[in-house]
Structures are given as structure tokens and as C-alpha cells.
């Protein structure tokens, strides 16, 4: 049986579980033939699945819920990532020491569906993002705005961009980080989403059960063998741009985020995410309580 998986970003250890499952033959054992499509800066997984380009996608919950409200009925069928890895990383010399100092600063943010947690946090802090309180800059593909001092803070992931800043020669002592998790504004990240109508098809459901089971097996294997997982990811990288040290380190950080999850969506996490997204003041990410945006139907069967 064929399954196409659309990733949210380029091939890297962030998606180690799926590559391990494929490489180690876990998918094959379930009788699945899985194609993994890497993402990119402007590939929106939501759009890919809407166009029928994939059966299942990895996406962050804020953008999935926003899409759902736009009329694209996505359903979360599994949540391998327990905690959020997103943070704002600031240069100490810019004078930012606490969130109160953001006012009047330039902050780098990812767009394309990843801006929701940030916008939500800012509205919680009561800061306007239209340039009056903070100046927002659409961050490109790299950490240059921080290195070039074009921004006081930029968005980073604990497992990736943060280390790129360090690799560029800035010592951790010169940096201040604000993890969304610590600020109480964390939202759920990498989860697996499918189209609602597909779930009514028992054959599809069956396929997803197998897929989630194999994927979680892959994740747990990756957690236990981070270095091997990183090497597997490296082998699957077509661009030849990834390096071993970087991927091994990333795998280490990723393992921390997946650690608390067996794949099943934790309802309290979900409720917290929804609450955060709805509290966005005048311009909330979603306006009404989503219904049927998640299901345990798959994980119940897969993890029994």
C-alpha cells in the first residue's frame, strides 16, 4: 500500500522517526510503501494535502487549526512531539533581558503559517506588531538577521537555528533565549494530519493505523539510537548540505521534545493550544472552538 508523507521542512533530524522507520523496514513490515516528500521554506503542507499531493502531512497545530477554520478539514491523528522547541533568541548587546524589553525592538519571525504562536504571544504581552510597539521582520532562511544585527531577536528552534548561531561564532553567553514553553505560550508542534473525509474510509483508516504504528516505532528507535538515526537522516538528504555534527546534535535535542509522547495527542495540550490561539485579542488566529480537529481513533488502534 502506498502512503505519501509531506514533511514540513527539509530533510533533517527533526523528522528522524519517519526516515528511521523507512530505513529500518518498519513501514515495510506493515506492508506500506512510504514516499517521504521533503518540504521547504514556502511549501505549505496544508496546501499540498488540499491539492491531493499527500495522504498525511507533518504540520504544526496552529497552522492546521487555522486551515481548518478556512475550510480545509484537517484532523490530527497523532502527535509525536510532546513539547515545543520554539524560542526567540536575542543578542545580549541589543539590551533585551526580558519580554518587557521587546518594545521598540525588531524581531525576526517565520511566516507561512509559523507566525501564529509569535502573534499570539505578542498579543498576550499587549504589544502591537504593526511597527508601533515591535517591528516584525519576515525572517529568511537563515540566522543572518541576528548576525548582521538587523534584528534584536530572531526565531530559532532549540534543535536547529540556535546552534547555527552558536556555530557562527557567537558564544551562548552573548545570547538570551526565551522559550515559548517557558513563557507559557507553547503550542503543539510536529503532528500528523489527514483529511477528515478520508478517515471515514475504513481502508484508509487501516492504512493510517499501520503508518502511525510504524512511525512511532521509528521515533522510539531514533530516541534510543540518536547517532544512528542522525546518520540515516544524513543518507536521505539529497542536497548534500547537512553535516554530521549538526544532525547528531539536532537529534539529541529532538529526542527531548519527543520524549514525553507515545504518539497519542494529549488533550490538555490540545486545549492549551486552542486557548492560546483564541486569546489573540483583536486578531485571534482562530475565532471559534474547533470541532473534530483531532481523533484518537488511529492511535487507539495503533498503540493498543
Amino acid at each position, binding site marked *: 500500500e502506498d502512503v505519501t508523507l509531506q514533511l514540513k521542512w527539509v530533510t533533517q533530524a527533526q523528522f528522524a522517526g519517519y526516515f528511521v522507520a523507512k530505513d529500518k523496514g518498519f513501514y515495510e513490515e506493515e506492508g506500506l510503501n512510504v514516499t517521504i516528500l521533503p518540504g*521547504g521554506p514556502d511549501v505549505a503542507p496544508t496546501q499540498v494535502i488540499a491539492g491531493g499531493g499527500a495522504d498525511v502531512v507533518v504540520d504544526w497545530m496552529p497552522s492546521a487549526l487555522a486551515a481548518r477554520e478556512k475550510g480545509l478539514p484537517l484532523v490530527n491523528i497523532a502527535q509525536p512531539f510532546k513539547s515545543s522547541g520554539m524560542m526567540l533568541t536575542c543578542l545580549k548587546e541589543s539590551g533585551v533581558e526580558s519580554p518587557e524589553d521587546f518594545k521598540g525592538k525588531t524581531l525576526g519571525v517565520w511566516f507561512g503559517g509559523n507566525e501564529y504562536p509569535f502573534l499570539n504571544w505578542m498579543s498576550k504581552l499587549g504589544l502591537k506588531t504593526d511597527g508601533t510597539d515591535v517591528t516584525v521582520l519576515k525572517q529568511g*532562511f537563515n540566522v543572518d538577521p541576528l548576525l548582521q544585527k538587523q534584528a534584536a531577536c530572531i526565531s530559532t528552534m532549540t534543535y536547529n537555528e540556535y546552534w547555527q548561531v552558536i556555530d557562527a561564532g557567537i558564544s551562548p553567553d552573548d545570547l538570551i533565549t526565551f522559550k515559548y514553553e517557558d513563557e507559557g505560550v507553547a503550542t503543539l508542534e510536529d503532528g500528523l494530519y489527514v483529511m477528515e473525509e478520508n478517515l471515514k474510509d475504513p481502508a484508509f483508516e487501516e492504512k493510517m493505523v499501520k503508518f502511525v504504528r510504524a512511525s512511532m516505532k521509528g521515533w522510539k528507535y531514533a530516541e534510543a539510537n540518536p547517532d544512528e538515526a542522525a546518520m540515516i537522516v544524513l543518507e536521505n538528504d539529497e542536497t548534500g548540505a547537512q553535516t554530521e555534527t549538526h544532525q547528531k546534535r539536532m537529534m539529541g535535542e529532538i529526542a527531548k521534545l519527543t520524549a514525553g509522547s507515545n504518539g497519542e495527542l494529549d488533550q490538555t495540550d490540545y486545549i492549551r493550544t486552542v486557548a492560546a490561539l483564541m486569546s489573540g485579542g483583536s486578531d485571534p488566529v482562530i475565532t471559534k472552538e474547533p470541532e473534530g480537529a483531532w481523533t484518537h481513533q488511529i492511535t487507539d488502534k495503533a498503540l493498543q
Partner: protein
Amino acid sequence: MRSILPVLTVIAAICGIWYLAAVRMNATWVYDQAAREGREVMLVDLVAETLTQERPVLPAPHQVVKGLWDGVAGQKITSKRSLVYHGWVTLSATLLGFAMGSVAGILLAVGIVYNRAMDLSVMPWAIASQTIPILAIAPMIIVVLNSLGVTGILPKAIISAYLSFFPVVVGMVKGLRSPDAMQLDLLRTYSATGAQTFGKLRLPSSMPYLFASLKVGVAASLVGTIVGELPTGAVAGLGSRLLSGSYYGQTVQIWAALFAAAAVAAGLVGLIGWIERATLKRMGMVR
């Protein structure tokens, strides 16, 4: 041949300016680092350090050359780190897109020349089509094509074709219309058919125009391919090298990919120029 010396001079001048600029632009970082480590920078150190940074704002020419050399000769050409491999990925999509674009362009031009309604209705929209920022919506187009089951190198090739068809249409329309009234009348006195007029007059006389626009078109189609590779999947190709270089702040990698693309462009334009000379020579149009 006689322009070799001037060209070398200009290149030398550019390199000189480039080195100076590299020192200047990379200096901030050197000073900052020194300040963080609390040491002084001498001028000699400054030059040495600005020209050997791992993530320079502007890499020095020799760093780019080394990056190119490593990319081309430093690996097996099948390796994913090889510029030859990525160059080939880009080249193949470019060639496919260019072929599609030129064929479409030529057919459209023939239609425009032979059909008044097409002439009036298509041309303004062809101009408008080129003002659509296809480059900005490339990722979307690729997704849409994917959803239609078009995958692989074809989506890139379609974007590249979209950019290359326009110069070909414009040049080819001009070329097919280049025979003067007298040359056309001559064939009418023979009662030549439309097909004969096309094959024996319009087509041959459009050749110089066609080749001129093919050169523009092939360059445009390379741009199209690279842009098609930029944001989408970043799987392989010079565009994705550019992107991943940018993603990891590897300026040397960006510049190496850029120069590799330049070499591909120069090669393609040169190749068409060569075919042009050979063809026109056979047609007796080179004196």
C-alpha cells in the same frame, strides 16, 4: 580574440575591487569578534582574517574558486555534494523547459503570424503574462501541478518554459515577419502555397532572429529552473544549493553555486551561439 586582453583587464579590476570589498565588508565581524574576545586587531591580521572567514559576508575570490574546485573536482560526480551532480539536475530541467518553451514559442509565433485574430488577442496577454510574478508563486504552482499528478523535474521545467517562451515568441514573430514585400511577392508570382512560403522563405529568414531570442530564452529558462528549485523541497539542483547555502549561512557555497550557474548559463548561450554560427554559415549568412 582581440578582446581577450581587455576582458582579462576588466576581470582583474573586478577581482581587485572584490578583494577590497571583501576586507571592508567582513571587517565588522572581525572587529566584533575581537571585541568579544577582548583583543586588538592589526591591519595585517584584519586582512588575513577577513579573507579566510568561514562565514564571510562577502567571500574572497579565492575562497569561491576553492569552493568551486571542491564542488567540482573534490567529490565523485555522483556525490550529493558535487556541483557537477547538482549542475546536471538543473541543466536537465533547464533543457527540458527550454525545449518546451521554445517549441511553444515558435508555434505561438506561427499562429500569430498566420492568424490575425491570434495576433490581436494573444500579444497583449503574452506581455501581461510576463509581468505576473511567476517566480513568487513558483511553490504554489508546483503544489498545484503535484496535485494534478505532475511531479519530478516537470514542474520545474514548466516554470522554466514559462519564462523562456516569451522571448522566443517576440523574436520569432519578428523573424517570420522579416521577409519584405518583394520577397513575398516573388513567391506569389510562382503561385507558391502557404506551406511553401513558410518553408522556403519565412522560416529561413527568421533564423537570425530565432537564434538571438533563443539565447535570451535559454538564460531565462535557467533562471526559471533555479527559482523553481529555490523554495520547493530544496531537494537537488543548483537552486537548492543556493538555498541550503543561504539556510546555513554558507556564503561560500552560495557563491560557488552562483558561479556554477553562471558557467552553465555561459555554456548554454555559447552552445547556441555555436549552433547559430554553424547554421548561418551553412545558409551562407556569415560573411
